[in-house]
């Protein structure tokens, strides 16, 4: 069993980190070393396999769903290829400290209302065109376009002015300071402006990344080949990458066990037991918190408009049992959305609600209810159905009788975005793995201005706005803001977090150097096959 979440959330303030980075002391190689790696990689690395990286080979990755070109600029279920074809301006290390990528260095203005980016001048797109500041301007404006449905559009929208200082220096001017600008830089892929409309239909994906798109076969997967003109000398090691769509979990596992695929992030938690017994496969956990499981509550449906009833539901759920029985034990039972690497994480918040059916019954009684009947929507997938059944049983023990409403993924997502959920639903959410304010301004279930629970509160909006517009993080003031957000989320319980889950990687023991960014973009710059 691999170790879960060993990192502590403490770290230097972002301002000091930015200054250090702005001084240009961070070399690219160091940046790569700081790139997000599997939490347990050290422990899962096979003995004697630390030989020098080897050039060549094609990596086959098994994915359970196909790439959706229309969602290229938003976070979707399958974003592995983003960092293979494209680059981002910066990337976070394990402590949310930004490291250079296409931006060599940067300087924040003292008032937090502008940032000067110094860009790499040795980068070309796959088409041969040189990368310049105009491409960054395009990338920001592209995310501001509502058609792109980018979750970080609110942050992109704060950039209202662009000042070019030559081809490779750019000043971004903000309407107000925000503390999640580097979330945007981690999230925002730099796409070729001349072919972007072809990109969102899947015809041409042209970026500056380590691999070029050879072919996209809808329903089958993507074929990528090495970008020989990649700006990082000698990288990538691999000749190519194949992303093969294998929707059935059993077939996907068989593909890994037979050696047809060497990497996957889509083995269901319930099936990891089978993988564990295979000596040629290793399991690693990423502390990206990209898939927290939650119970959503529609606060406009009586009696869920009563906070006491919502809190009763939060006390009724046995999170530890849910984690063990439906997710194979991979994750962290938590009442709050934050993974351990988040600045907002505290043990007190994580354990704010424990499994206490007696207390749940008492709260329901105090609210005047002894028996409730409510619908619960869930995705009609095996793992999601098991989670829904587990919740149904726990809620039944306190007198809340739940009727399950299975639905397909597309309908579920549509209902989530259009705020058309029934009384209860269960799904997964991301965005808690970056700056805490990003969760509350960008994720559909938490968005202070418009969330799926239809929860409105001036206090929530005020706290979120304050947290979002304070440029410092890691300070006592920032921590106090995070505390306030967590308190509102826990007390109001319009969204009841259950398990914080990272990405679980299953890899062949001959594969090394695989990393993910905070938004689950796969980085294979340093990956090689032995």
């Amino acid at each position, binding site marked *: 069993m691999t170790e879960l979440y060993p990192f502590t959330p403490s770290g230097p303030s972002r301002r000091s980190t930015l200054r250090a980075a702005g001084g240009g002391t961070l070399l690219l190689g160091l940046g790569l070393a700081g790139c997000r790696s599997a939490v347990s990689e050290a422990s899962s690395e096979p003995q004697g396999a630390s030989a020098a990286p080897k050039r060549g080979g094609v990596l086959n990755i098994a994915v359970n769903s196909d790439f959706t070109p229309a969602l290229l600029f938003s976070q979707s279920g399958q974003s592995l290829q983003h960092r293979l074809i494209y680059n981002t301006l910066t990337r976070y290390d394990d402590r949310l400290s930004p490291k250079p990528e296409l931006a060599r260095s940067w300087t924040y203005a003292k008032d937090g209302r502008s940032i000067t980016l110094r860009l790499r001048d040795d980068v070309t797109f796959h088409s041969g065109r040189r990368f310049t500041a105009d491409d960054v301007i395009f990338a920001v404006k592209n995310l501001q376009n509502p058609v792109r449905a980018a979750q970080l559009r609110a942050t992109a929208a704060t950039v209202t002015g662009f000042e070019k200082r030559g081809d490779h220096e750019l000043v971004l001017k903000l309407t107000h300071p925000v503390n999640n600008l580097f979330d945007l830089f981690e999230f925002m892929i730099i796409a070729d402006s001349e072919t972007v409309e072809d990109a969102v239909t899947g015809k041409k994906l042209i970026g500056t990344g380590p691999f070029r798109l050879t072919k996209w076969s809808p329903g089958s997967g993507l074929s990528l080949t090495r970008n020989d003109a990649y700006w990082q000398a000698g990288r990538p090691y691999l000749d190519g990458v194949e992303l093969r769509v294998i929707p059935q*979990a*059993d077939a996907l596992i068989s593909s890994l066990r037979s050696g047809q695929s060497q990497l996957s992030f889509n083995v*269901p938690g*319930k*099936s990891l*037991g*089978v993988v564990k*017994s295979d000596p040629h496969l290793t399991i690693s956990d990423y502390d990206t918190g990209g898939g927290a499981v939650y119970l959503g509550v529609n606060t406009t449906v009586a009696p869920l408009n009563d906070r006491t009833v919502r809190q009763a539901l939060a006390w009724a759920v046995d999170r530890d*049992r849910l984690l*063990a*029985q*439906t997710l194979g034990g991979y994750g962290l039972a938590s009442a709050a959305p934050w993974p351990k690497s988040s600045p907002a994480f505290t043990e007190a918040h994580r354990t704010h609600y424990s499994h206490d059916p007696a207390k749940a019954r008492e709260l329901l009684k105090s609210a005047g209810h002894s028996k409730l009947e409510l619908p619960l929507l869930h995705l*009609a*997938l*095996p793992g999601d*159905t*098991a989670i*829904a*059944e*587990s919740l*149904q*049983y726990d809620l039944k023990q306190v007198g809340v009788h739940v*009727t*399950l*409403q*299975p639905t397909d993924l597309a309908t579920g997502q549509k209902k989530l975005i259009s705020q058309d959920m029934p009384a209860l639903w269960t799904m997964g959410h991301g965005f808690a793995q970056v700056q805490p304010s990003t969760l509350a301004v960008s994720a559909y279930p938490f968005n202070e201005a418009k969330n799926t629970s239809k929860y409105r509160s001036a206090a929530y909006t005020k706290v979120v706005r304050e947290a979002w517009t304070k440029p410092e993080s890691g300070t006592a003031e920032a921590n106090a803001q995070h505390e306030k957000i967590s308190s509102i989320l826990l007390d109001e319980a319009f969204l009841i977090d259950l398990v914080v889950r990272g990405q679980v990687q299953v890899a062949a023991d001959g594969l090394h150097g695989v990393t993910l960014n905070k938004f689950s973009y796969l980085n294979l710059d340093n990956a090689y096959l032995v």
Partner: protein
Amino acid sequence: MTSTTDLLAAGPPPAASKARGRVRGRHPYRSALSTARARTGLVLVGAVVLAGLLAPLLAGHGPTDQSGQSLAALGTPGHPLGTDDLGRDLLSRVLYGIRADLGIIAIAVPLGAVLGCLFALVAAAHPVADTVVQRVFDLLLAFPGLILALAVTAILGPGRVPVVLVIALAEIPAFGRLLRGGILVQREREYVTAARVGGSSGRRVLVRHILPNAADPLIVQIAVSLTVAVFIEGAMSFLGVGVRPPEPTLGAVLSQSMPYLAQAPNFAAGPLVTVTALVLGLSLIAEALNREIRR
């Protein structure tokens, strides 16, 4: 295994068959059911049905009661068949799953049979109606069972009613075409002409003379349809469009066991053995009846 096609090819039973049975003093079906093949089938089906009926007495736990004891092995104290991923007792889930399956097919198959026979009677009444009914049957037969299931659940959502509806819809053409064929053959027979000459009304001739002679293959078809119904329910639950969880059905339990085939094979064993016994038993009975009719 007996198929609907075999039965259609066999055509209606010769009048002599019944006469032979009466001469011997035994009803032909009773004779068919006394064969070793049929007896084996009856024992298998009887055992499964009995287990389902006695589920509240035999099951030591509620079928939806969860516990922290996940994937317990075969023979675990208190859980003879073990437990599933959510710690539910597998014996209880299989027993109550039998009840759920029997409840569904006991409604769905007769419903399909009645509707199919009504269509056949309408078809027999007038050539135009016959053409319309035949096209309706063609339409229903054009949809493979699972496509029909997915279409119905896309409209109605998953649940018990859509499963019953899908099974009934799938069975309508089988019963309808079988009875229509029987009626067409019988009404050309001399005894029908004699009845008409004797002054019987068309309705009386159909109900009193033709139907009893054309209906024999329907008995066999019921046994076949029960087998098909078990498969349809199982397939729908397996695909997640059957009865809503957490209610157990044999197909649903089997579907839930799939990720654990290597880890906990006992998870799949219970529903697998039960479905096999039920389908095998019904097939043997259908085969025995069919052989008797074709003699």
